[in-house]
């Protein structure tokens, strides 16, 4: 039924790669034992080997060692674990202050808000008009009682990339732990923990054609972190709960399948989209940075029209995109990201996010730009704000 659907919402989630499915299958049908059964029967040993091989692949991709990787259920769990685990460990030693950016995804943002309600103090660092963090403000907000700084690597909506090196070095100098949510950059924009002194990294499989419900947290050796979810002793007693071995294996396969060539191709789709829109449609604004941007993200505001109307028209023509419009969100609030970069409701109202993946082509871009060109002019014709 969706044969002709052109899916351009790859930061929401991606289509699974068949090769990932093939890698996962044996761990559902043949080697389905749990890893902790290794002393009981040989299938447990095979399962554990599969899990550890996957761990090794994730570790290598970051320049980390295998014991620094903990598998989780995804970005949300990884970020909860990093923040709640570290603040609990440092409550008495350091204090009850944390720092995040204003553009964080909900996993970090709502964790911070929850801690605030429990009596922690939280500083939300501003960003400039492109979404780039104010490093001076960050420096000035770090205190003696700061337990953790959590700043995303790449933004989920506007694709802005932070200077991870610079942030990590500031934190290192001030002797504060640094967590980054790298869900939207992982494998597309390299991170090397042997040169960048970041302490914790959240990752997710589903944004790179891997399975849903699996992710990982990198924890630098020696980082004080409490277990935040009680249960069994899995993942060297750092994360309770049955290991998702097929998921971990699929995640590792997805990581292996990402190539530099493919990332360059996504960058070309992104640039071509922006180029065509700016050449052919008047009254548009690029949200985010031209240069410090993830390869897969183009986010553009089409002024004088509303985002949900655009996405519905696009949907009826077989395209899937998303918007930062309040009308699209479940909380009826405009995107905190667009408001955070100094945009107003109007800017969020007409914003469309195109995010590209493995199964997109240049033809897809041509088709969606052709469609949106017509849709925007049709909607502007009925807009009271547009001067006809």
């Amino acid at each position, binding site marked *: 039924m969706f044969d002709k659907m052109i899916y351009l919402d790859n930061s929401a989630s991606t289509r699974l790669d068949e090769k990932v499915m093939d890698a996962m299958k044996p761990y559902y049908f043949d080697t389905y034992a749990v890893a902790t059964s290794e002393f009981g029967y040989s299938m447990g040993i095979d399962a554990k080997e599969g899990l550890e091989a996957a761990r090794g692949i994730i570790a290598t991709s970051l320049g980390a060692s295998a014991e620094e990787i903990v598998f989780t259920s995804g970005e949300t769990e990884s970020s909860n674990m990093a923040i709640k685990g570290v603040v609990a460990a440092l409550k008495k030693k350091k204090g009850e202050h944390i720092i995040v950016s204003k553009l964080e995804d909900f996993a970090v943002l709502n964790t911070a808000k929850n801690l605030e309600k429990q009596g922690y103090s939280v500083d939300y660092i501003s960003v400039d008009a492109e979404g780039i963090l104010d490093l001076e403000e960050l420096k000035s907000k770090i205190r003696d009682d700061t337990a953790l700084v959590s700043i995303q690597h790449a933004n989920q909506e506007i694709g802005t990339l932070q200077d991870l090196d610079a942030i990590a070095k500031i934190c290192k100098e001030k002797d504060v732990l640094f967590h980054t949510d790298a869900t939207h950059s992982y494998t597309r924009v390299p991170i090397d923990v042997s040169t960048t002194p970041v302490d914790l990294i959240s990752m997710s499989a589903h944004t790179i054609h891997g399975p849903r419900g699996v992710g990982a947290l990198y924890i630098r050796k020696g980082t004080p972190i409490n277990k935040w979810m009680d249960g069994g002793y899995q993942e060297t007693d750092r994360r309770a709960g049955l290991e998702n071995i097929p998921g971990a294996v699929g995640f590792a396969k997805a990581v292996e399948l990402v190539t530099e060539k493919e990332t360059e191709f996504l960058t070309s789709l992104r640039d071509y989209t922006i180029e065509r829109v700016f050449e052919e449609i008047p009254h548009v604004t690029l949200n985010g940075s031209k240069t410090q941007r993830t390869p897969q993200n183009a986010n553009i505001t089409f002024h004088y029209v509303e985002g*949900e109307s655009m996405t519905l028209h696009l949907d009826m023509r077989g395209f899937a995109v998303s918007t930062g419009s309040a009308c699209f969100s479940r909380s009826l609030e405009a995107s905190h990201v667009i408001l955070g970069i100094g945009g107003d409701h109007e800017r969020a*109202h007409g914003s469309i996010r195109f995010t590209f993946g493995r199964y997109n082509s240049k033809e897809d871009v041509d088709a969606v730009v052709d469609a949106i060109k017509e849709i925007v002019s049709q909607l502007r014709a009925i807009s009271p704000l547009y001067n006809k």
Partner: protein
Amino acid sequence: MKFPYTEKVLEHFKNPRNVGKMENPDGKGLEGSPACGDMVAVYLQVNPDTQIIEDIKFESYGCASNIATASIITELAKGKTLEEAKKISWQEATEELGGLPPVKAHCSVLAVEGLRAAIRDYEEKHGLVSEQEPTTPDVLRSRLKHVMNPMAGLDIIRTELVTKMEINDGVVRILIDLPSNHQFAANIKEEVMEKIESLWDVKEVNVVFTE
């Protein structure tokens, strides 16, 4: 393909009726909600003798529900007298459209308010409005009937989200039975402020959440 709207909503969204700007309208209403961002303009041409709406047009800077409701409302209002048209409610419009998702109710309310604003504009221009009345709890109540509870798709008065309304020397205090960190708290607050602040004798509005 599957859509979150009825076929009638989609039909009006795709082919909105009575759309466009009207030159020299007899009455014009522009309503917008900063919380949602949607805006709607309604233009009227009224027969001064019969008070019948002879022509009506709308423009929308809004989502699908907003466009579809504005479209159906122009159909409902055309040919009616001003008094009859005033009685068109968003419930009626929503029913006519075969229903809307509850969370979208406020977008459709905006279209109804656009029509009412246009009628009020006509009445003001033609000396049909009486003296300004002081704001009473009843006035507050009728205003707040236009603020939607997005969980229910009904207004916050009817769903008993408003537990207290006070007015003292132009200072209004509205108590809402929701925690301040509720998913819709910020949105409801903004809409309440917007509806009350514009009253001529109101100096200050305080929206207080429980907890």
